[in-house]
């Protein structure tokens, strides 16, 4: 880097991170699988694969289908469950020096609360990220994240059990993402992250059947980035809590789109699957960009805070 030193640190609802680039849930395993390729201290934090109270087997294969500049997945939230995560994954992950954020999932508000309570006693977990894109079994399988009331109930239940930073991960499969964002903010979330995958489908035209055994899957990768940037831009302007931008980030340029839109941090997902060192490259690229544009602090990147460009615009929006 040049002569200028840049401040890459950010704060997310009480959680201080060394830089704004996190590894997205479900694309970095339990973190440990990446250590041959990436020093986990180089990224702001590791969001581990979604954990449920009990282990889950996940969906039948095939679970993956590549699409133009995208990936459809129907992993089905396979995970080792809270107990095994705590006993055989978390200690090794903490030993790497990584900042650990645990993504959680459940089928009812009570289940989310129970897993938060179980994780509370474990030392070293910096934050929870609540995945509300899961079906709510008590509401006929409609995802919590598609209903502001159900989303708020989950967040309230988790909030009672969890005093540290609480991030809520929003589903893009809604008409107005800001409505859900405001509901979870009111329910006590410290930050929101978005977007989770977009519901999609691919058909094998020779076999004349859906490619995925589950028929539908979640679309991720560069194909979804413009949708994600738009939703992040809207959400930044709708809530007061920090927003974490996710969706198709594969380079520093891509990450900067989200930071300029007002995101306080970003997560790198599918790009890590294609290139396990992607996140470290992105951190370096952001540092290089800031030096080149003489910007000293990454937290000042948002459009509206960049000197001379739409000064104050972000503030005005928030007051509306």
């Amino acid at each position, binding site marked *: 880097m040049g002569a200028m030193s840049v401040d890459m640190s950010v704060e997310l609802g009480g959680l201080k991170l060394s830089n704004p680039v996190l590894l997205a849930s479900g694309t970095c395993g339990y973190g440990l*699988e990446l250590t041959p390729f990436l020093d986990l201290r180089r990224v702001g934090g590791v969001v581990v694969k979604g954990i449920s109270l009990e282990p889950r087997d996940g969906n039948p*294969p095939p*679970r993956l289908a590549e699409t133009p500049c995208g990936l459809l997945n129907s992993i089905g939230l396979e995970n080792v469950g809270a107990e095994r995560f705590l006993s055989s994954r978390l200690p090794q992950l903490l030993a790497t020096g990584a900042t650990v954020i645990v993504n959680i999932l459940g089928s009812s508000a009570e289940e989310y609360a129970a897993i938060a309570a179980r994780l509370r006693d474990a030392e070293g977990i910096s934050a929870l990220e609540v995945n509300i894109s899961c079906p709510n079994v008590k509401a006929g399988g409609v995802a919590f994240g598609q209903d502001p009331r159900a989303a708020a109930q989950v967040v309230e239940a988790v909030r009672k059990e969890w005093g540290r930073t609480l991030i809520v991960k929003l589903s893009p499969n809604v008409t107005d993402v800001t409505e859900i964002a405001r509901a979870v903010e009111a329910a006590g979330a410290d930050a929101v992250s978005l977007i989770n995958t977009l519901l999609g489908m691919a058909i094998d035209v020779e076999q004349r059947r859906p490619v995925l055994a589950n028929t539908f899957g979640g679309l991720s990768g560069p194909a979804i980035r413009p949708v994600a940037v738009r939703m992040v831009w809207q959400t930044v302007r709708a809530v007061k809590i920090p927003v974490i931008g996710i969706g198709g980030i594969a380079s520093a340029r891509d990450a900067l789109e989200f930071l300029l839109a007002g995101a306080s941090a970003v997560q790198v997902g599918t790009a890590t699957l*294609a290139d396990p060192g992607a996140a470290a490259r992105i951190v370096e690229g952001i540092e290089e960009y800031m030096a080149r544009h003489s910007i000293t602090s990454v937290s000042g990147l948002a459009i509206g805070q960049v000197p001379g460009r739409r000064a104050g615009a972000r503030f005005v929006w928030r007051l509306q």
Partner: protein
Amino acid sequence: MGRTSVSARVVENRPIAPGIYRMGIEAPWADGLVMPGQFCMLQAACPGSSDPLLKRPLSVHDAEDGVAWFLYRVVGKGTGLLARLVKGDMVAAVGPLGQPFPSLAGRRVVFVAGGMGVAPLPLLARRRRVMKVLLGARREEELAVLDVLDLPGIEVEIATEDGSVGHKGLVTDLLPPFLEGGVEAVFTCGPMPMMREVSRMCGARGTACWASLEAAMACGSGLCMGCAVRKAGGGYLHVCSDGPVVDAAVIAWG
């Protein structure tokens, strides 16, 4: 385990049979570290392009003097772009990955191969892990790769469905004499129906059988849990990290 993610130089890449290429890349692990049956995730380096998005899994075909070799069939976009590479071009490579064939030193091991299932053979031969290969094909043309396989000290028996070379019928027809003769293990790599039958035959005789599995894969390194295969007792294992070589008895072959 010595796995790396690197940009590697292509030392050779040429067609050896219609639609089948052999490619060598410079790899720091290509001497001692890589084990037979392991694979790499490969992608022709196209900076800034995200289509195709993911690397493609290919078995390590051979490894010697710092060069890792791959034998691949051009199937679609990913392998099509690999086929266009020439000496000096760069390829993005993650590996070596996955569980290898077990080392059964001094044991009598038969390898049952079909189609591109021959890919891991030269490295197995180099490490003296196999004594006999049974190779199946539909017709003679599919055996063209055999001419370039360097398999010192290994006998190959052939079965073709049309009888143009060797035994007329399925490769699995060749297996019973070996099972009865008391081979200690069978390795298999190729189409699922062939591996299912090999596994069934070995299971019936109580002969150990290891199969090299394929599944759609995104990362190859245990990050995404995408490459699931159903286990005999329920639940799934992951081809990239529990395999690709697995004890055939643990698979629900369906």
